[in-house]
């Protein structure tokens, strides 16, 4: 593993907030973090594997919704606020829809949902919560929802 090298091409993305997502190793890190958090939840709470997956799924929903679809702008001031009206999801790949990164990020919550539902044997109330979470996340990632603010939620003043 130590001898495995990857090459990093300089991307043309000027937005420093999102350009890190185009480098090699991001997808693997994302999946590994989810897996390790499942292990941590399992060891801390001592619950069944299915319950642990549900907890991971729901906290993943909360975290990714907050950072991808709620928070707007960039965490530094060098770009003079050109992205202040865009959430992180709207900023990736310069707003181009249906790129590889976006498809990957769309698939991850769906896969998590399937794992969580399967390991809890599709019982309520976990099924309801999981379905609600994946529904919200998937709808938020549709190309049609680019820059759409429903009922003015999270719109600017």
């Amino acid at each position, binding site marked *: *593993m130590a001898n495995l090298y990857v090459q990093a091409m300089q*991307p*043309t993305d000027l937005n420093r907030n999102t350009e*890190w997502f185009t480098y090699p190793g991001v997808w693997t890190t994302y999946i590994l973090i989810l897996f390790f958090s499942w292990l941590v939840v399992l060891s801390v709470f001592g619950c069944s594997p299915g319950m642990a997956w549900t907890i991971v799924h729901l906290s993943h929903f909360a975290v990714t919704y907050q950072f991808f679809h709620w928070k707007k*702008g960039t965490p530094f001031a060098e770009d003079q606020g050109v992205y202040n009206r865009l959430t992180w999801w709207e900023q990736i790949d310069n707003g181009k829809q249906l790129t590889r990164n976006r498809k990957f990020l769309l698939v991850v919550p769906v896969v998590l949902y399937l794992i969580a539902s399967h390991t809890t044997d599709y019982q309520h109330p976990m099924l309801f919560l999981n379905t609600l979470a994946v529904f919200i996340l998937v709808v938020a990632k549709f190309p049609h929802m680019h820059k759409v603010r429903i009922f003015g939620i999270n719109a600017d003043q």
Partner: protein
Amino acid sequence: MENAFRSGILAVLALIFISSSFANASDSPFIVAHKRVALKKLNPIVERISVSIDVYNRGSATAYDVTLADDSWAQDVFDSVIGNTSMSWGRLDAGSLVSHSFEFESKVKTVYYGAPALITYRVPTKSGLQEAYSTPTLPLKILSDSDTGKKIEKLKRLQSSAPPAFHHHRNQTLTAVRSKMITIPYLTALTTYFSYGLLFVFGQLRDFFRRIIDLWSHSSLQGYAPICLGLEDFYIRRLYLRIQDCFNRPISSPPDAWFDVVERVSKDNNKTLQRTKNVSRCLNLGSYNYLGFAAADEYCTPRVIESLKRFSPSTCSSRVDGGTTTLHTELEERVASFVGKPAAVVFGMGYVTNSAILPVLIGKGGLIISDSLNHNSIVNGARGSGATVRVFQHNTPSHLEKVLREQIADGQPRTHRPWKKIIIVVEGIYSMEGELCKLPEIVAVCKKYKAYVYLDEAHSIGAVGKTGRGVCELLGVDTAEVDVMMGTFTKSFGSCGGYIAGSKELIQYLKYTCPAHLYATSVSPPAAQQIISSIKVILGEDGSSRGAQKLAGIRENSNFFRSELQKMGFEVLGDNDSPVMPIMLYNPSKIPAFSRECLKRNVAVVTVAFPATPLLLARARICISAAHTRKDLIKALEVISSVGDLVGVKYFPAEPNKQQLEEGRVKME
């Protein structure tokens, strides 16, 4: 029938109209050539390179005496197996296509960078031979199983013996440039993402608790809007302030090879820092002191003090009011002749030179295509000009060509009219990468599509090239081919200010319109004298050979330092002959570790993190100076090696075999 007749006439008129608008292109042949290089594996050991070049006459007239010459295959390295690198045809009719192909075997392991093939042809209506270039190809790693030691020797011999000449339009490539992509160990990439994630999570948690605590406290600013919107200052507060002591270190002596760094202490965990009275004498590896003019110089300093007494520290007015002294006119003449252009204009500040000139050169309706890693001053100037800005992948002429073609075909946004002007902005040496620009290829692409070239030589003027004239001299590009040459005096000349050099008409226009010339204070007279004196020293006009010694010194120092670092196993970016060498750190925790440990051992390095570099590619940037002696460099190497072991930044194995393999990636002719 009548309708068909009318529509027929309209179609004919439209055709005439359209073809007359292409009048320039349609009455002469237009040669387009595509070069394709592919690797063929005959058996597991033998590999052949097959090259095929298609030449196509896209114009509407016939081209005569078409000759194709592909000189980019050095005979020492490549054996011709089938076919010839040159070919000629008597005529090439309009719209027709000819192909030529040949095959090679290579003797060494190398990365081949596509150099264009040259096609010359005759047009009956014009007197001289016309020239066209094939599209360059992307790097192609050619493997062979010859002995590592022998091939490295062979490559070193080639590197030193190949001619660096580049004449008018002939595109022979350079041996000095050796750019490679950043290679990260996979595990390091994963751990770096994880570290940043952890820092981010902790920052968010602290912000969350801070917001809860602030709810309970009373603020005297009820009703005012917050100064920072949203998460604008998150990076500064939660990541940068934690390691604040590694940046902005104050010094208390001139930035020579050794200087005094003031020590600072913090009582509240790096939120605020207080200066102490202690100074430590450290080796300076961070200043842009390329030729050693930053400290007192035996020729320059007496003359600077004399002009200080004669002219006073500041002219106290702008150039057009009362701020042009004899020093300023002499400075502009000297800079113009040094750089190799007819005229030059000088400004008081380097950053302002870029950000105030670009809005004057181009406006709405124009197109600026800039390299993705250009300096902030260029980005600022481009944004302020109102022109459309596009970026191309760093130092990739093929991507530049792709972007140019796309943009020219599209035209202006919404109206799709042709662009009023296209300017390509590149830098000579990129300060965060230490890489040289691929100037010959980029100039070739620009000439093909009739775009202007703007070259920012802030780091390369005075530091590279045989006589110090910058990247054009080093890479063999004629200065008449670069339209606007910009540079600063802060790096190699030990002064302050920037210049723009170009044709007489351009400089005259700039003097009428540029706000930095009309309203900003002119260069301080002692600073101008420093530049004049340092140019005299570099050119040897002071009567000694110190200039040539300095130039040779910086080249030897940089090459020595870079090769030693690479032998130790560090990942060092940048090309040979470039005095800037970034050592990759990647992990955010290694940035303060490297910086602090080096400072403890009395070596001052500059570490660069986000957002000056991409998030993951944090680095420690070392700038070599001609003032560093061999002893200084050896001490620096020892310190960096021990700190590198401690911190764990030696990402490549340090065996000599593997390092020679890395060195084997040179650009071949």
